[in-house]
């Protein structure tokens, strides 16, 4: 458990968190904790999302129509709310991904320029 050193890094830019959440649900539906764990997994533990930022982001994305929430049964037969990526969300992810790549490339270029 490398919780302590990463505490600072969990403060994410909103846009980045949205991007990560959309990415986390591309391969299937997840409930809240599942989304957090999936992000941890795909960022190799670099980002740990706390409920205080996770739930607002999930609900905001749902509000925009990028995610769809449905009540279902978890692996332990517990009632949980599952989030599924909607077509609009998939397109959004594509757009965000491209702009992220442009930013990364631009920043990298800028840093290399000095």
């Amino acid at each position, binding site marked *: 458990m490398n919780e302590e050193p990463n505490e600072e890094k969990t403060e994410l830019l909103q846009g980045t968190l949205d991007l990560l959440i959309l990415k986390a649900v591309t391969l299937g539906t997840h409930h809240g904790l599942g989304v957090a764990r999936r992000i941890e997994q795909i960022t190799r533990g670099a980002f740990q999302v706390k409920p205080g930022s996770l739930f607002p982001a999930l609900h*905001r994305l749902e509000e925009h129509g990028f995610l769809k929430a449905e009540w279902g049964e978890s692996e332990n037969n517990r009632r949980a709310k599952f989030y599924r990526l909607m077509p609009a969300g998939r397109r959004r992810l594509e757009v965000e991904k491209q702009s992220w790549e442009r930013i990364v490339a631009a920043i990298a270029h800028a840093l290399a320029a000095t």
Partner: protein
Amino acid sequence: MPLLARGSSMMRNLFRRERVDQDLDEEIGSYLAALVEEKVAAGMSPEAARRAAAIEVGGVEQVKERVRQARAGALLESLVQDLRYGLRTLARNPGFTAAAVLTLGLGIGANTAIFSVVDGVLLSPLAGRDPDRLVMLWEMTPDTPQIPVSYPNYLDWRQRVRSFEDIAVYNGFDQFTMTGEGDPERVRGGLASGNLFTVFGVEPAAGRLLDPRDDSLDAEPAAVIADGFWRRRFAADPRVVGKSILLDGNAYTIVGVLPPSFRLAGSEVWLPLGRFTHTPRFVRANHGLIGIGRLKPEVTIDRMLADLGAVARQLQRDHPADNAGIGAAGAPLKEMMVGSIRQPLRVLAAAVGLVLLVACANVANLLLSRAASRQHEFALRVAIGAGRRRVVRQLITESLLLAVAGGVLGLGLAWAGVKLLVALRPANVPRLMDIQVDATVLAFALGLSVVTGLLFGLAPALHLARSEPILALQEGGRRTSGGRARRRLATGLTVAEVAIALVLLVVAGLLLRSFARLTGVDPGFEPRNATAALVSLPERDYPDEARRRLAFRELLWRVRALPQMQDAALATDLPLTTSWQTQVTFAGRPPADPGSEPFLNAVIASPEYFRTMRIRLLAGRGIEPADAQGRSRVVVVSESVARRFFGGRGALGQRMKQGGAGVENPWLTIVGIVADVRNDGLRIASRGTMYVPHEQSDASSAWLVVRSETPLEQLLPLLRREIAAFDRNLPLANVTTLDDALDSSVAQERFSMLMVGIFAALALVLAAVGIYGVIAYSVAQRSQEIGVRIALGARRADVLALVVGEGMRLTLLGIVLGAAAALGAGRVIASLLFEIEPGDPAVLAGAALLVAAVALLAAGLPALRAAQTDPRAALSEG
């Protein structure tokens, strides 16, 4: 449908905050539980796992608050975007925007105007405290469901009936001659029991109102004046309290002024009833008062009726001579005031609601045809990541913007419309002056706009969102895959418009024919060139019968001497507004049981009355000058009396008298039979009338009826001069031509007919615009096909028939559907109709033909344009 599910999630978020909260609680709870499970699986003790999980989640309330903010933020952010975008879009299409806003403005305006009438007349409370507990009370006989209350019976009710906090009585139909300052004037006066204003719970605008002490003859004579009279006669002078006025020569002190909201029986002055109750007018056998009771809390109308009925039966036993067969009943006061107008207003409200539906369908059609050109735009927005829900929301935002703009315009139209309505003063609409555009009406208009916006915006929005963006983009935005679905939707909307327009036309047609039937009824007299005015002799100046008879004789003689006069006569009641009814007994034909004697209208008339009114004499003779005092007493009866009681034969020479069999009244010999007159309004067949000679009766007031070719404005000064020459203090009151009187007796029917007619015309025009739009659009879509047809040798007539045929097919469908609905609507309004069946085939056929003709015109214009298509241009375009 996922789209609808998403829409409902938005609604849940907006309107059902509590459920969203619960949902969120559950979600966080399940997150917490999953976290604990995870930690336990990793080897923690359940206790430690719970603690660690709780710390990790932090404050649940904080999380919830942040979620709420995020949701609201997302919503608000997109709303502001949508609004800005919507406004820009609408501003870019001024033609479309103007057409839509105008259509909606008309629909919402008409609805708001009618709502303000309904609100003012039916929904607003009456003046006074707790008006819902006020009940109007009356008495009845086996023959007549409603007769006024006799004063002694009222006193007994007050003592014995337990259902009321208190009961009051009044008589609002007296008239007094006010003399002193200025011209003598007839004022409408009311006699009120001292507790009347307390029972109503009304507060004085100035001074005090009458109280039971004023009923005593020892008290200083007090009068209370109505607001209108105070303004008219006293210029709203606040020092009027304490002033003395002369009514019929008696002095009264004005003790107070009523508030403007309190209007009862049109009385301008209210006097204490107690000052008059010693006169024979208020003995038990005389019925002349209206009762007003205030129910105790929790007492229902049914319980009150049982209570009152029981007391009425006691009174029958206690006073068998006067009260045989006399019962008592009552109904909520508001019911009595607006009961007759409720159904017509409901029909108006329904009709105007249908107009709004047609307007909505039309705007939806406009939006649909515009959606065609916007499909590309929206496909692009969806492609770059806008959720479809966002697109739908965007479209609905635009619709709501249109609707609110239409609502603002409608409110303006309604405001003007209500001014106009009140100025038109449809008679027989009670409480008309209470109508105004107020906060309730404002809220109604706003709510209506929002509902309207959703109604016409939803279908096109859903339609657009459902179409496939990829296809739309591939087709380059020119011809779109949604074309067929859209045309189906547009056609469906137009069919509905046609059907609704037909329903309204049928209703309007039924009301029109019914009105024609009603005004075509023979009233039994000739209203043209006849004028009536009320002359009342004050008791102080004309204290006895002989003097009154002499005065009327002289008056009549002077008036008839005018060269402009063809005929002149006196009568105590005019047709259509009969107020005097009396029980009668026929000699040798005792009633089945005491108290069941029939009631007839009774008129005291001078010899020339039948000739002046042009009432036909059917048998025997009319009233003649020889029928004077000391001669044998005679009576002339109307046809229905002869038919009802003598089988149409042998009435002449029979004897009858006023009152029940036991009452000591002189016998009258029937000497003539005249045609029936519609005494209780045109709708109601006459119950039968008896006419007794003026010279053999006593009347202190009578209508002077004159027949002359001279216009009223020239005639009136002549009449006034003759009367003044006889007695300077005699006013002429209630001057009216009989044409006007007949007219105003059908004013409410005319009002309903006119309004529904206007709404039907509006709906028809809107439907025609709808047909035109659909056909014109279809012609534009098919211009290539039409070009090919023409190129291949189709004649212009063929093209014309093709296009018009398309329009007429949907019109025919609308007519069929509308006709079915109209049959139902006809049954709903059956109670408003007079001698016409709700399914009248002529009306149905006429309306259908009118719709078809207008549709032909609407489809014909685009068809003519299509027939002019230049095949080369049409083909090269593709």
